[in-house]
């Protein structure tokens, strides 16, 4: 189920400019249509979870492998595909130390020093923002033309 974003395997050709919006849109839409086709209509939550995974996967692929968080996301996705384990991805940030909380939020943050963590957080926020805008746009456009 995580093969939706395979092919197009080139890492981000313009790492300095940041991830490309069009590639993100393209990948995500492809994955979206795949999910809609393959999952039965009854299991809406299951489909929702798959779409969410597809969103993160397309984000990570668009960001390329030059980023620690994208590598961590892809690693996590591939391992989940093999083991079919569902582990909580979002941990609560009751950690007293804010750096620890940030490490739990950003994928792959546990193995980084503070400086790299800040850099990865910035890139992660950028990609997340783009993904959210894209998904919001899709929802808007599809809902405005529905019956």
């Amino acid at each position: 189920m995580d093969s939706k974003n395979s092919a197009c395997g080139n890492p981000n050709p313009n790492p300095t400019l940041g991830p490309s919006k069009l590639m993100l849109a393209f990948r995500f839409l492809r994955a979206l249509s795949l999910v809609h086709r393959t999952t039965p209509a009854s299991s809406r939550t299951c489909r929702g979870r798959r779409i969410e995974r597809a969103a993160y996967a397309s984000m990570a692929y668009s960001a390329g492998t030059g980023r620690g968080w994208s590598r961590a996301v892809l690693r996590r996705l591939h391992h989940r595909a093999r083991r079919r384990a569902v582990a909580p991805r979002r941990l609560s940030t009751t950690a007293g130390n804010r750096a620890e909380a940030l490490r739990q939020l950003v994928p792959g943050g546990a193995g980084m020093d503070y400086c790299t963590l800040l850099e990865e957080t910035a890139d992660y926020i950028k990609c997340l923002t783009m993904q959210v805008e894209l998904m919001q746009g899709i929802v808007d456009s599809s809902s405005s033309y529905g019956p």
Partner: protein
Amino acid sequence: MEPRGSSGVGSGNSGTYTPEIAESLRFEEEIQSLIDPSFDASSAAGGSFTALLGLPANQAVELLHHPGPGEPPASAATDTLRLPFGCSSTFVERAARFSVFATDDSPASSSGGGLSPGLKAEPPDSDSPPTLPAPAGKPRRPSKRKECEKSKVSRRPRWGFLSRKAVAKKSKSAEENTSAAKPAAEENTSGDKLPYVHVRARRGQATDSHSLAERARREKINARMKLLQELVPGCSKITGTALVLDEIINHVQSLQRQVEFLSMKLAAVNPRIDFSGLDHILSAECGPLAVASGCGGGASDPAMWASDTAASTGGIRRMPAPPQIWHLDVVHPQQSSTVWENNGVAHPHFLLSPATSLVGYDPASSVPLNSNRLKTEL
């Protein structure tokens, strides 16, 4: 160089002793005259013992063996006594050179090289040219020397070193706080290449290799925090690292929650995305770019494709003029994407190793080209 010139003037009798000793003697007297206005240069000639106390041991011994030249340097000192007061730069130069003698046990080697004593407490290697000031604490030096050096040095450039060798910890002397605004860079660049990295320390800051590295790290972290502050909306006005970090954490959490919520919403709605819809989505994000790249070629083809997709959806067909650019190029991904989706169903467990590009898809090879083209138009 002016100090050399003055030394040439001063010492006409360079036969029995090295000129540096004479210069150090003169310098000592100049300092004495600075400290004590009533200092008589002539008294130094006779009572050269006081001058001897300030000199390094070997130089003093040499002078003792050659007491004769005591007068000429003294008389020469009177000539050159007034010189340094006119221009402070020469004074500092001579101070620097004097410090060379202070830290270097072999004046002969230091005379040839640059104006920089070694930083280590041990006698420096002869091949590594000694570097500028702040002598490491040498306890066996007489205290009088320390006072002289402190008094004579008004402004001295302060250089820290980030070197991999073990650097002797500098004693926290009073000189530590006087960092220079004086651009004496030329003194530092003289000499051979050193394995050290010369970093100018700011005023009032230590120049340990550790503290320099920590300062560089702190500056890096602050730069990244500033970037983050710009990314997170509403974070620029917050002062204080802890609150900013809280804001960042909240922002990341809210973004992740939004992704989850929107994905649930998308699961309910099955979006029939024709590429006119895609145009709208993308143009909403990067509208100005699409308008700016005014390529209107190939109108017939997009029309054909658009009609195709519109027929499939049966929905409202929108084809706004500005995003027409997308039709031309997005056509190809659409075509190959359907192929992929079919293939994707056939190969459900096709795992991608992120580092390598995939092999085996002929349509796949065309997409990177198209995507590059798309990107350039973006």
